């Protein structure tokens, strides 16, 4: 780890003013479960660390007519224990304890979960987010890409978006709120994630001097939702495929569906094709399978990850069936 300056502001305004106008100089420290690892491995080397944990109004949760507000500094552990989450967003409540380990959940924040960097082993070994060797040859496309993207991988970005919580948050219709020197921004969570085209670009629509302040999930009392993850190990393992599904029903048929895949692309991957396939349909094995197939029609696996197409399909099919059966798998 290289030397850095450490500041601990108490207000959002202070924090924002301490951030620079370009990436690479300052990083925000919240739970630190990802950032400190990246710093120890010399993948990032910020000159200034801004510890935002002292900003009180970024902590905690609240509810109003707009929905459920989660402060960016709320830990995954606290969120998993929250009664409102369990009651109103059971699929999120199910996803939370599957993330990482208890020790990490007790430190890791929701804001940090959204902003964590990809787990791509080329990136983590210092070959860059769009990894190349010294001669400029792309490494992931012809290399060890068993865990890499099968969708949205036409450009140089082959990594997969790392959050396991984001698919179900997007399926629930979550919005993200940011704050910077020019004021506040709010947009649907899926818009927060972008596919970088050049080294130096980030995988988030977050300006270098903005901070994530909160996530808002709209009321979901009429939603049947489910989260499904395929992992090799029972716990504390990066998944191979994630699916988040939220259905609104009219009678026994689907009125509207929100279907999002994780770990398949450099961004969380909503599937309008699958949503379309379910519209007006009852949920059964066949319709779920058709929707899952529609979602993966355009998959373009790399040299060693064709199996992930099958895993993504299965995760989606199981999530749809689970959502329809009231979240019980």
């Amino acid at each position, binding site marked *: 780890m290289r*030397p850095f300056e450490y500041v601990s502001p108490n207000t959002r305004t202070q924090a924002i003013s301490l951030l620079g106008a370009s990436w690479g100089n300052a990083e925000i420290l919240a739970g630190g479960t990802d950032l400190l690892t990246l710093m120890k491995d010399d993948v990032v080397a910020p000159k200034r660390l801004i510890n935002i944990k002292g900003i009180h109004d970024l902590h905690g949760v609240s509810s109003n007519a707009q929905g459920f507000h989660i402060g960016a500094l709320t830990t995954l552990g606290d969120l998993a224990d929250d009664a409102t989450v369990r009651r109103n967003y059971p699929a999120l409540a199910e996803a939370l304890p599957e993330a990482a380990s208890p020790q990490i959940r007790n430190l890791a924040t929701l804001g940090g979960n959204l902003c964590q960097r990809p787990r791509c082993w080329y990136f983590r070994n210092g*070959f860059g987010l769009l990894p190349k060797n010294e001669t400029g040859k792309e490494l992931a496309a012809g290399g060890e890409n068993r865990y890499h993207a099968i969708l949205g991988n036409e450009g140089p970005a082959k990594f997969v978006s790392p959050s396991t919580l984001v698919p179900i948050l997007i399926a629930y219709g979550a919005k993200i709120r940011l704050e910077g020197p020019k004021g506040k921004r709010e947009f649907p969570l899926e818009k927060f994630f972008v596919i970088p085209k050049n080294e130096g670009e980030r995988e988030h629509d977050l300006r270098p001097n903005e901070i994530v302040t909160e996530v808002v999930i709209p009321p979901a009392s009429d939603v049947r939702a489910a989260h499904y993850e395929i992992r090799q190990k029972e716990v504390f393992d990066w998944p191979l495929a994630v699916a988040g599904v939220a259905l609104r029903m009219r009678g026994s048929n689907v009125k509207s569906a929100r279907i999002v895949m994780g770990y398949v692309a450099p961004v969380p991957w909503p599937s309008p094709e699958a949503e379309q396939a379910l519209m007006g349909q009852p949920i059964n094995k066949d319709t779920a399978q058709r929707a899952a197939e529609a979602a993966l029609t355009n998959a373009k696996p790399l040299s*060693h990850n064709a199996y992930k197409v099958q895993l993504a399909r299965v995760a989606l099919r199981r999530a749809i069936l689970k959502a329809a059966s009231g979240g019980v798998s």
Partner: protein
Amino acid sequence: MPDYAWPDAQHRTLIGTRVSRVDSPAKVSGQAKYTYDVHRPGMLYGKVLRCPYAHAKIVSIDTSAAEKMPGVKAVHIVQGPGAAIHWAGDEVVAVAAVDEPTAEDAIRVIKVEYQQLPHLVSDAEPPKGGAQEEGPLSMDALDDMLDNEMPAGQMVSQIQQYGITEKPSEGRLNELKEDGASDAVLDALRTAAVHPEAASKLPSSYQKAAAQTVGDPEKAFAEAAVVSEGLYGIPLIAHCCLESHGSISEWTDQDHLFTHISTQNVSGIPGQMAEPLKIPATNVRVHQDHIGGGFGSKFSPDRWGIFTAEISKKAGGKPVRIMLERDAELEVAGARPSAYARVKVGAMKDGALVAWQSNSWGTGGPGGGGMPPIPYVFSIPNQRQEHIAIRNNIGPARAWRAPNHPQAAVLTMCALDDLAAKLNMDPVEFFGKNLNLTKQRENTYREELAIASELMDWKQKWHPREQIASGGMARGVGLSFHTWGGRGHASDCDLTIHPDGSVELKLCSQDLGTGTRTCILIVASETLGIPMDAIQLQIGDTTYPPSGGSGGSTTIGGVSSSTRRAAADARDALFTKVAPALNTQPDQLECVNGKLSVKGDSSRSLSWKEACSKLGAMPLTIRGKNPDRSKPPDLTNSGVGGVQMAEAEVDADTGVVKVKKMVAVQDCGLVIDLKTAESQCYGALIMGISYSLYEEKVMDPSTGRMLNADMGFYRLAGLSDIPELVVHMMTGKGYDERGVIGLGEPPVISPGAAISNAVANAIGVRVPFLPLTPDRVLAALEQKAGA
């Protein structure tokens, strides 16, 4: 001649019972100090600059900026300009500084220019016709032959046929003897033709080993009723010690070194450090209390152990600590060689095995590596083996718990299991039918197979491969056999009885975490007739009598024998001093529960303390020493058999495999501590599940770097991945009287084959290579669907 023989079952009070480890409280409370925990006053922190390339030549090194950096106390060039690098992560420069960040900063400002060379990090099947013929044998090749337990006659004929690349010193010959080389082999080496030019010849990446043929395989295959052919393999994995390799070295004066080191071989370290440091072995003191895993990778001080001492000297003798970081631990601190094979096996209609043919290959890094002992356990009458060793830049190999045996078990037991399936035979019946081919282990295996079947409920769970559910969850069972030597090593110990009744026992053994301390105390306590906690045991320091390295399952046989001898002699010496006071002869005395009495007359007795006061002013010290290895063993022995069964569940939609149950039935002669013996098996099963399902060293073809040198993607089984584990130790008549035999290696040999066979039984098709990851399982299912 004193009688050291182990007491029979009626006369054992502790031996063979379940005794908890004496060091458990220290370990679970965090009081136990591992080498990693050692922090010496004024200690400096060492860091290492590692080569980022898998194959390169060092052109130039500029350390001037690091040397000028405040807080940097020493800079040491490990490999200078001109040196060739054969794997990424190899050591180039080391520095010592007042703290870790300063040492890291210093490493970062060192400039090294490399000339990159072409690398190979793959161990895929060699191209046809691409392999070089066998030439003169290197010392590494001889080591491999010994590891593989190649028959002495075969070794002699190969040495005579090919010659050797260097004339071995007498010291080297002694090492080979220690590793099991027979006198005939040593004589062959002394008279072999030496071809030093062959050592410097640029070797091909693919080296053919001599083909071996037994009987008439061609004829046997032609006559066989059923022939099965398949592809099998087990990858290169890391040792992944949870306590990484490393040491803390300091010079107590100009020519005396004190080293704390994480090692399996405390007694052997001084000799290995003395020569490179140019000091007598007597001047090296080594100390270790506890070790966090070695698995065969911690016998030597390693290059980094030597330069830690050298840097300490440069820094005026101050303690210097270099413990490997996790990535270095996984990249450079050892790996188990890979092994793959195309295997053809044939049997008669009744299942009797008649023919084996294998074309195998594998890598142990730059050294290539030998052929595993295949076919394993079953001496099939007609055999032909060809092997190609791949020399590549994947990193250096080391002995990994039961060297070459887990590989041999996978290549053999999976091929035989496929043959059983082709015969439509239950593997228990099929393997049972062929147990005559296991020679002297036949009865052991037969008993173990019956017990394992019972414990697994095999009859209920096994089904023919065709009868599987399509899609969804599929369950199956599989089994494997294994064998190992395990005779005790050379071990000396000193047992002292003080006139005040206190007793101490000293030996320079280590406890790998297997319960060695506990077992030594059990033997001493049982022999002296006093409680375990009345004996102070000191191990892990070279100021104590030497006791062998813990490798090859040799420790328990070694330390239990020397302890038994010392304790028996000390007890008898004490009886001689005490007999007159009780008005009897020494051979009429016994000591039970801390009370010395005349046999059959408990009224004539003394407490232990009273008895010891008869020693006079001087304590009594007795040296226990094991008989030379050339003599037949008495208290220890060699040769065990084990049977394991696994039950696996496969999600046929995702390819995710879960092990649901494992059964290990194991023989190890006379068990000293049943509890730690069982624990040894539990640990081996867990390690086996990890290497069957998760572990592999993932190498990037383009950069030659290991991509998963971290605990996130170098996966080990977690608590919830570990199913019901059932361990049954074979004890009693037929086992106990053989003496004490080591248990470290055997139970870790079979899990790979047993789990792979269980998966094949579950899904009806072989997944050729471990680890059994979803991509491989789905590919096998797809191939089956397409077939």
